[in-house]
Every structure is written in structure tokens, then in C-alpha cells.
């Protein structure tokens, strides 16, 4: 078995932005023989070699697809954080958790399978005031205080670990990504920063960590083609405070007192613009930052975008229409400086 003897890759959730970019990268790589994408909708990306299987992960047909296409690598990206878009929280949980269960059950019975790459999230750590400043991958994600998306991710990771223990010959790579930002990816957070006025919670300033979509795709490609067993936090180094990010975007922000936040979130959700679920409130209060040491040393990846750079690129490429852009600010600074020094010179002259 040569290490590069033609990978046969199954990508779940091929409609997603990252999945599409990953498939395009794998198509261009001659180490990959076949790519099968699973999703209910037709992929939006221009993909030539990728075969599309229109199926839900809970469909037993998935097992047949895996066997028929002689899949040896599964990249599981079909995990969503958006209850509104998935048709409600219970359906979201159904798809996330039960879908993963079915997929891994099918994978376990496939002898050829030697790798599973799982897209997870740093949300498994939760967001609380009594959390450490940096989360290590080993920080045991307790399930007691989680809900919603992070609860799904914790359960999915649990199933993946069970799978790995039953199939010790297969490699499991769990990638805990921070919030994605970039020119094309769309998440609740990107729509949040695109709001004309950004609501924040009065008196709180969470520390945020972002992962640029280009880094995310690069890490996914490497995980697919190389062997990186283990769990890794993936993000750009550094942090931004929410207040700092909003200022960098040149947006006005409105601090909302904590008791009114859920009401406002409900209103915003009604308009359908931001899929903000209540369990994300903790994130807006305390944020979360993963320790990237293991990504750097064990995985051997140095991100192209730090967290501030990822955010700046996001602002620049999305044309977020800042109220005040940086050049204007510098111009104002110079004008104000000239004005004030002229005034100072005038008063000094008068004083004499």
C-alpha cells in the first residue's frame, strides 16, 4: 500500500463553501483518484471530477456509496451551526448527530477505509467566565453545561472517538476550527459583522479568534493527503477584542444591556438576517480562544493569516462599507493636527 496510491475521498456537505474549495483543491491534485460529494443540494462550485450523490447522511444508501466507490478517506464537513437554515433546532441536531452516527457506522464496516477527517469547532469548549484564557485540546469538553451547536459538536466528537477506538488501523483527525472568516464563507458571525450597526453586550468585551477560510482549506487538504492523527485547534494566531474588531470594521456598535439581549436576538432572528441562537450568548460575553501550540508543532502548520489579518482581509474583500475607513481616519488626524497646532501657535503668539 503506497502512501500516495490514489486517494478515494468522500466529502460530506459538499455544498458548503469550504467543502467546495477543498474539492477543487483535491481535483487539482494527482494523488487523488476519485472524489465523491454528498449533499442534498447540487454543489455551487465548478467541479469537474467530483461525483455528486444527492443523499442525506441518514440515508442507508451512504454505506453502499462508500463501498461502491471504494472510499478510503472520509472528510466530514456536514456539521451546521445554523438552526434556522436547517429548519429548526431539532432537525439540525438530527442531521448533525444522527447523520454523523450513521456515517461513522457505515465507515466502520468498510475495510478499505483508513482515514476520517472531522470538522469540529472550538465551540466544544463553551464560553464561560471561569474558563482558562487558552483552551488546550485536552481540556475535557464536559457536556453538562453545553447546548445547541456546541453540544452537537461534543457528541459528534464522541462518536468519532468511539469509531477511532474500534478501528485503530484508521487515522482520525479532529480539527477544531475557530470561527471562519474570509472572502466567501458565510456564517452567523460574518452576517453579524455585516449588520449596519453591530449590537454588543454592554459591559462585556469577548476575546475572539478567527480562522481564515484559506487556512482552513489548506489544513483540510493536508489532513486529507497527509497523516495527522489527533485533535487540533485551528485558527490564526493572536486575538481581537470584539470592540477592537468592530472598530477595525469601521462600524458603529450599539451596546445592549444583558437583560434585553435575548429579546433583541429574537427580533433579529425573525428578520432572518442573523441565525443567532441563544447558546451563542456566552460567546458574545466571554469569547473563546484555543491554544494553537499543537497546530504549530505537531501538525506543523503556520497559518497564512493571523486573527487580525484574517479579520482585515474579511473586511476588505467583503466591502463591509465602513463608516470611517482607515485612510479617512488618517486624513482627519492630519487635518486636526494642523488645526490644533495652528491654534496653539496663535495663542502662543497672542500670549507674547
Amino acid at each position, binding site marked *: 500500500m503506497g502512501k500516495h496510491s490514489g486517494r478515494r475521498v468522500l466529502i460530506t456537505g459538499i455544498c458548503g463553501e469550504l467543502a467546495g474549495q477543498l474539492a477543487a483543491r483535491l481535483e487539482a491534485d494527482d494523488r487523488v483518484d476519485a472524489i465523491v460529494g454528498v449533499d442534498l443540494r447540487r454543489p455551487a462550485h465548478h467541479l469537474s471530477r467530483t461525483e455528486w450523490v444527492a443523499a442525506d447522511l441518514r440515508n442507508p444508501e451512504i454505506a453502499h456509496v462508500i463501498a461502491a466507490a471504494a472510499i478510503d478517506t472520509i472528510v466530514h464537513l456536514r456539521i451546521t451551526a445554523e438552526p434556522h437554515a436547517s429548519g429548526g433546532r431539532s432537525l439540525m441536531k438530527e442531521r448533525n448527530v444522527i447523520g454523523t452516527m450513521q456515517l461513522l457506522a457505515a465507515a466502520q464496516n468498510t475495510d478499505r477505509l483508513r482515514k476520517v477527517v472531522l470538522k469540529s469547532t472550538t465551540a466544544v469548549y463553551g464560553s464561560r*467566565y*471561569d*474558563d*482558562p*484564557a*487558552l483552551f*488546550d485540546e485536552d481540556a475535557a469538553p464536559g457536556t453538562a453545561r453545553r447546548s445547541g451547536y456546541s453540544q452537537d459538536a461534543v457528541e459528534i466528537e464522541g462518536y468519532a472517538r468511539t469509531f477511532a477506538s474500534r478501528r485503530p488501523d484508521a487515522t482520525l483527525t479532529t480539527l477544531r476550527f475557530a470561527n471562519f472568516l474570509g472572502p466567501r464563507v458565510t456564517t452567523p458571525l460574518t452576517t453579524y459583522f455585516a449588520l449596519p450597526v453591530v449590537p454588543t*453586550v*454592554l*459591559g*462585556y*468585551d469577548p*476575546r475572539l479568534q478567527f480562522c481564515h477560510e484559506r487556512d482552513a482549506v489548506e489544513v483540510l487538504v493536508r489532513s486529507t493527503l497527509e497523516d495527522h492523527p489527533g485533535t487540533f485547534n485551528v485558527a490564526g*494566531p*493572536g*486575538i*481581537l*477584542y470584539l*470592540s*477592537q*474588531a*468592530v*472598530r*477595525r*470594521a*469601521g462600524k458603529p456598535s450599539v451596546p445592549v444591556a*444583558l437583560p434585553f439581549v435575548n429579546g433583541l436576538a429574537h427580533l433579529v432572528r425573525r428578520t432572518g438576517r442573523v441565525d443567532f441562537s441563544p447558546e451563542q450568548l456566552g460567546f458574545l460575553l*466571554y469569547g473563546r*480562544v484555543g491554544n494553537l501550540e499543537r497546530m504549530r508543532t505537531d501538525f506543523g502548520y503556520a497559518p497564512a493569516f493571523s486573527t*487580525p489579518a484574517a479579520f482585515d482581509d474579511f473586511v476588505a474583500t467583503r466591502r463591509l462599507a465602513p463608516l*470611517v475607513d*482607515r485612510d479617512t*481616519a*488618517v486624513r*482627519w*488626524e492630519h487635518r*486636526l*493636527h494642523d488645526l*490644533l*497646532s495652528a491654534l*496653539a501657535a496663535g495663542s*502662543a503668539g497672542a500670549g507674547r
Partner: protein
Amino acid sequence: MTQAGRPAGADVIPLGPRRRGAAAGDEPARARCGEPLADGRTCRNYAEPSGLCRVHEPEEPGTTAPARADRPAPATVPPRIRPSPGAASDPHLAPVPDPGDALAAALDFLRRRLTGDYDVDVYGFDRELTEQVILPLARPLYRRYWRVRAVGLEHVPARSGALIVANHAGTLPFDAIMTKVALLDDHPAHRHLRELAADLALRLPVIGPMARKTGNTLAHGDDARRLLAAGELVGVWPEGFKGIGKLYRDRYKLQRFGRGGFVELALRAQVPIVPVAIIGAEEIYPMVADVRVLARLLRLPYFPVTWQFPLLGPAGLLPLPSKWVIVFGEPIDTARYGPEAADDPMLVFELTDRVRTVIQRMLYRTLMGRRSIFF
């Protein structure tokens, strides 16, 4: 942090009478530094090959933070000797000689803050905000209100990591803020103290983010270990709420020192422990009673009734102007035990007790030399 033997830049006192004899026998004639100190004594730190100790050795260029070069020298230089009379507008920009430059710097600062163009570290420490905004607010308290005298700063290493362990008092943690100012303003290397805060402080709105931005982080083993490994000064107040929320009649009586977590931390990180005694913080809000019912209702560890509060209403929030002394004691070496000693609970208890005794003794000694609470 050095691998074994002596931690960089710290004077080491041997622990225990038996060990003291042995250590003295090992190193019979180690040269001392001998530089005169601010209080008239000579420096007793061990000398480096240059003949001076790590504190008094001339700094190699480039080892201190470059931003420090243009700091005001707040200790002795009165602000009036500024050369330019035109720059009287903004006191904390005093060191910039040309008023035009000062204005440009102020505007540049303002513009960068408003457009988010500044760096914070992963723990949330905003160095610029701390140095330019928060410390200028705390400095008048340090210099004028409590007239803090910082003694023994030469015991704090100039470059390497160390664990600063101090007594806690005063109902509100002003003692932590003053220790921070002392190390930044009066320490020759102008070091930032990274405090390990209680989770309550980080939970509160406004206070929590501000605590993070000024360098606090949660009292959590992993965070603290990483900070120490990065060569930072980490500050702990192991008495916690038992210390800061104690009654006035118990003043200067050290409470239990937590469960010795800080000793484990220092042992694991192999950094020296610098014991610190803070005199004066006990008298800023003399607490006569603790209203348990209200505390439980507000989910606070204590609800203080002090001489001023709530009797004087909002004016009761004003702390009393006691005279403060912060004494930095000789560092306690941990390197001699090795990192695996952190797993030996007996040794950890013993060291915890020793640090507590040392600080208690420093407190009593300094109290005896005090003329009055306020002068």
C-alpha cells in the same frame, strides 16, 4: 527560566536551618554585588561575572522593551522641569519635548484606538491601554494619595519569570493595582505584573474586560504556567477572598494560603517565589462587619460595612489615605527541588507554610517601623 540551579536574576535564600548550613558550606565565598541601594543599604545579591548582580548589571541594549525608552521617570523627576512651556496641555505626554510632536503622538494614539489598530496578547492584555490610560489614572493614587514606598524591588528578577506572592487586604483589590504600579514604575526593568484573578472579577461586566485588558487572567494552572514559561512576572494573592474580605480587627493576620496551588505552580515552572508584604491596604476601607445575607443575595463573597460605607453614602466609596509600604522580600528558590516536587504534597504544604511565615514576619517587621497609619 534556567534549567537547574539558580533562577536568573534572583537572589536565593536557602530554606530550613539544616539546608542553610549545607548551602553555606557549599559556597563559602560567593561575591556580593555591593551596589548602594535607594534606602542606603548595599545590595546583597550574588554578583555575576561582571562584579554586579543581575539587577545592577548594565543592561545590554535591546533587552528591554523599546517602548520604555521614552517613558516619564515618575519617581523623582518633578514634571515641572519639562523644557517646553507650550506642552502643558497633556501631562502624560510630558517626555515628548516638542509640543507639535506631543500633539501628533496624542492624535496618532487616538486614531489608532478608534480604528482598532493596536495589539493585544492572547490573554487579552492590552499593553498600550494599560500604560497610556489605566496607569496614569492609578499613578496619582500611588504617588500622592497613598504615597507608596516600594522596598526591595531588586529582589524581583529583571528579565526572567517569577511568582509574586502577596498578602491581600482592603475590601477592594487596590493592593493588586498598587503592586502593578510599583513594578512598572519603580522597578529598574519596568516590568508588567500579570495578576491571577478570581473568577468573580472576570465574571463582572465592565470590571471583567478591564481586568483582562490590564493583564489579569484567570487563576488557572495552565494559563499561569504558560505565562511563567514565557518569562512573565505573575502575581498571586493566595488568601483570596478570605484575605481581602476580612474584618479590620483581623488586620495583618494572614489567612490560610489557599491550597498551595501557587507553590505547585512555581515548582512546576521552576521560577522563584518572591514574597511581598503590603502595608497600608488594610486601612483603606476598615471593614467592621460583613452582611452575609446581602452578600448571598448579590452573589458576592462578602458585603462590607466599613467606617465610611454605607454610612457616608457614595462618599463612603472614597478610600482612606493611609501610608503604604510594599516590601519585596528575598526570593525563595524552587529550582533546587526540581519540577517533579510539585507532586509531593508534603513539600508543597511545607513550602506554602514557609512563604506564609516569611510574609507574616515581613508584615510585623514593617509594622513595627511604622510611625502612624497615615504618615
